[in-house]
């Protein structure tokens, strides 16, 4: 920074401050947008419409899980079990389809599984006051165990005749858009309305911001924590179903990788626009960003393990930016 010749270097700093505020609001978005020309320069096919849609398709599963996580983060708690839950819901849905019970029952099975997980998580954390990390780590192990138990550790194959709808959701298009993306948009809209427009969402943010003040303002902190875990697990269940659709079946322990990705997407999302608050639009952008990176790396033939490293830089970079912004205030 340049110490100007005026007495105290005020103007220079305030320009810097403005830059930080701008970067705090839009830095993540700018970073994301920069990725496109860079990859496109190296590999022009990256920018084709087909590939863009493909990115959106690939983003769906991880973003859905991250949307679930957004609810618990908003309420000031954490859910480590989201990856395991997504995997378990995916196996349950695949098994139901494999037995020929049909698509609607498979959806119901996944959602019901999610609901159970959410209720138990909520019970452990909100009612029994067990530390949220510990309780949901326990739940993570339970879901992984159930996952392997139910799948018997082997892939779940779904016969071709039962798989049409699943394939449409996983690989197909509706009205020129990937079906997966349409589902994501629909779920994201519902989540946005709940978090941003409803009294439930406002109260979730309130208990996340200051549970004691929320309690004294008549907010049922315990009940809302519970609600956060249930909402989270339900949306994660949709993500689990999407996972089955992408895999066109069930694969044991397929959900576990989603934990890190969803944490990354949601935390990158908090750096976008609203100071440190998890929110739906941010999470969606974060999810798409991660999917873009993954896709671009494949195009550029960069080994997958570099992705992890780049992802780490993306998270730390984004969060550091918003952190600096807060300090500058």
């Amino acid at each position, binding site marked *: 920074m340049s*110490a100007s010749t*005026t*007495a*105290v*270097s*005020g*103007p220079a*700093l*305030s320009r810097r401050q403005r830059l930080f505020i701008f970067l705090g609001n839009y830095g993540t978005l700018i970073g994301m947008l920069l990725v496109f020309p860079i990859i496109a320069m190296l590999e022009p096919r990256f920018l084709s419409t087909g590939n863009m849609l493909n990115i959106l398709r690939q983003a769906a599963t991880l973003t859905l899980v991250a949307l679930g996580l957004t609810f618990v983060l908003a309420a000031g708690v954490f859910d480590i079990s989201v990856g395991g839950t997504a995997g378990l819901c995916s196996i349950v849905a695949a098994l139901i389809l494999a037995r020929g019970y049909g698509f609607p029952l498979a959806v119901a099975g996944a959602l019901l599984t999610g609901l159970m997980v959410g209720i138990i998580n909520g019970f452990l954390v909100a009612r029994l006051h067990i530390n949220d990390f510990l309780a949901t780590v326990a739940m993570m192990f339970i879901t992984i165990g159930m996952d392997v138990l139910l799948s018997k550790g082997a892939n779940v194959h779904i016969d071709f005749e039962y798989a049409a709808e699943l394939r449409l959701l996983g690989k197909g298009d509706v009205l020129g858009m990937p079906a997966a993306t349409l589902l994501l948009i629909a779920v994201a809209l519902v989540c946005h*309305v709940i978090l941003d*427009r*409803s*009294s*439930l969402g*406002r*109260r979730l*943010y*309130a208990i996340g*911001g*200051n549970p*004691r*003040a*929320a*309690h*004294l*303002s*008549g*907010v*049922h902190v315990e009940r809302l924590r519970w609600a956060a875990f249930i909402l989270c697990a339900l949306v994660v269940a949709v993500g689990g179903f999407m996972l089955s659709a992408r895999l066109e079946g069930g694969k044991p322990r397929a959900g576990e990788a989603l934990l890190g990705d969803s944490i990354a997407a949601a935390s990158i999302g908090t750096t976008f626009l609203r*100071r*440190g*608050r998890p929110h739906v639009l941010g999470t969606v952008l974060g999810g798409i960003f991660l999917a873009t990176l993954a896709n671009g790396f494949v195009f550029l033939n960069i080994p997958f393990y570099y992705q992890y490293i780049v992802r780490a830089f993306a998270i730390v970079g984004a969060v550091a930016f918003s952190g600096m912004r807060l300090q500058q*205030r």
Partner: protein
Amino acid sequence: MHDPPSTEQRVLAMHNISKDFPGVRALDHVDFSLHGGEIHALVGENGAGKSTLIKVLTGIYACDEGCIELDGREVHVRSTRQMQDLGVACIYQELNLIPHFDVAQNIFLGAEPRGKLGLVRWSEMYREAERLLGTLGVSLDLRVPVRKLGFGQRQMVIIARALLHNPTIFVLDEPTAMLTRAEIGYLFGLLERLKEQGVGILYISHRMEEVFEIADRVTVMRDGKNVASLQVAETNPDQVISLMVGRQLDDMFPKTDLEIGPQLLAVGGMGDGALVQDVSFEVRAGQVVGIYGVLGSGTAELAGMLAGDRPLAAGKMLVRGEPTTFRSPHHALRDGIALIPKDRRDEGLVLSFTVRENMTLAGLGRWVSAGLIRSREEKAVTRDQIEALNVRTYGAEQVVQELSGGNQQKVVIAKAMLSQAQVYVFDEPTRGVDVGAKIEIYRLISRLLQGGAGVILFSSELPEILHITDRVMVMFRGRMVLDKLTQQTDADELLMYALKGEASETDVS
């Protein structure tokens, strides 16, 4: 502004300092000067710009305009470290000490004398600490962990740390807020000694009597401006206070006589089985009931019970004649009883929320249909409330964290009002707010009464209790020991009951 002629010994001059925050001008062309061997008091309401000015001086903020001279030389402020090295030491309200380190370790924190290998030379450190405390006239066991010290002693440790580098300018931000009278006397003695050594002392305080006891000059700030710099000998507390608030103080307690209305809340034989026992009273519309008691007398617990935050073990409650029970603050609010908690940052506000989100939190259900918030209505209501309560903010979307204490308190009160409460339980509503905000809070209370509400005021400030309540009760060891019309009692009687639980002929000391 009103500098004495001897500018040679001026250790600090701040010229024309301005500082903008988003939407507000925190400092507006402020001039300020400090001489060696002078105690210069800086007073003003919360939000007047005192702390911003200090933060500019100590290098925490860079100012947008103006310049700072130390010992007649212009300084380009870059960091707090730089200002420290230039001889500016500052004591803030919160004491940054490491509890399990001992006194000497805390004094030398980050400045430990080191040997060749970078190892701390412990014996030298303790010798130096001993010497330093000796020059301050303080006797403290150097090897006692700081957590075992009282507040006043901790402050001495902080002061010793600040004086380690022989500052020429010593800034104290509300140093006496948590001190006992004896500790204050001790601190003042120390300041006098520093003054004799030629240190320039900048002393920020709310307390007028302290300013007039110790300061040589006083600078009054209001709305980010330096309103006046006066010689203490040539002014008086009333003048300073009216400069601070910008108006005369004769209407400080705007208590209007109101007709007492119907009963809003009655409690009988209320107790929590431990700290509160057999408390009975009633509150009527237009009435302020004061509850006075020393720390530990059960007043805090009683406030919690009234607000539904603490379960009742015994007794009954009637709201407008109907029996009721509160299992949580939610039920109390539903029955029209709202608490304005003592600690607004920890209990009153969601600091990361905006003014709007905080104001509507308790009464949120009023603007919800089918689970969704009617946001246009919510915004309109918030705007009205900001205007009605004169909340100094740049808008409903400002984060409350950025507001001053008095304005934060108004947001908490607005929240209670928007929950449509009829009984307001104020717990120390004016603690830590300045004179101007105090007056505004009293006006608000008076307006609530005119609107037909009843108020229960928990306060440890006798003048407040005596001036704005209609009825006053004193708690002692969990019981009500006195219940009188306010006009039939006085400060001595209240204090005596609060301290001894009964009237007695012998003096209370």
